């Protein structure tokens, strides 16, 4: 029963929340950022900023938290084996877990506080908004970059013999 909760429900939740997190990350990078640049030219960016971006960011940042917590639950007693590379069987998932952890940090420390300034949820001068836009963009792009090895190692961990044998 505990195995079902930890490994069954835990893995399901980890993957479902992870799909939502990385899906929205790709939405921002592949769809919203280019669309905002186009929309700024014909004055239609306001609708995206007001109605779309706050909702996307809400599901994005909380899906990131749920993904990390479910991943930690999935590792369970092997949490330290993975994060500190104490056991060969957990090397691949350890790399994936570290990449995911860096990405969670980027979401909550770099992307979300800066997006609040960009979207006008907190007061900021135009200069502060310009800087916030750059930092949030770079953190988001960094996460897109990191998502590629992160997904490889998350998937490879279940098939370590095939990938590293």
């Amino acid at each position: 029963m505990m195995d079902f909760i930890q490994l069954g429900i835990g893995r399901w939740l980890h993957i479902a929340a992870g799909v939502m997190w990385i899906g929205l990350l790709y939405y921002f990078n592949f769809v919203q950022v280019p669309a905002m640049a186009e929309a700024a030219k014909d004055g239609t960016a306001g609708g995206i900023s007001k109605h779309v971006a706050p909702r996307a960011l809400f599901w994005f940042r909380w899906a990131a938290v749920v993904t990390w917590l479910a991943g930690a639950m999935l590792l369970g007693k092997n949490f330290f084996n993975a994060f500190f590379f104490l056991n060969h069987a957990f090397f691949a998932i350890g790399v994936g877990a570290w990449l995911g952890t860096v990405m969670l940090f980027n979401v909550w420390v770099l992307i979300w506080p800066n997006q609040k300034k960009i979207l006008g949820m907190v007061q900021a001068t135009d200069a502060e908004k310009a800087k916030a836009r750059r930092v949030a963009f770079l953190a988001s792009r960094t996460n897109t970059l990191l998502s590629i090895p992160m997904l490889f190692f998350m998937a490879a961990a279940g098939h370590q013999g095939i990938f590293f044998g």
Partner: protein
Amino acid sequence: MKFFLDSLGWTVAWGVVLTWILYNVVKYALQ
């Protein structure tokens, strides 16, 4: 930095390069 991350194409390309590097690091560590 502009060259490294501003283009989505380059971001993905560097992601693939980083994957390849980390793959080889882990493969070496597991030997």
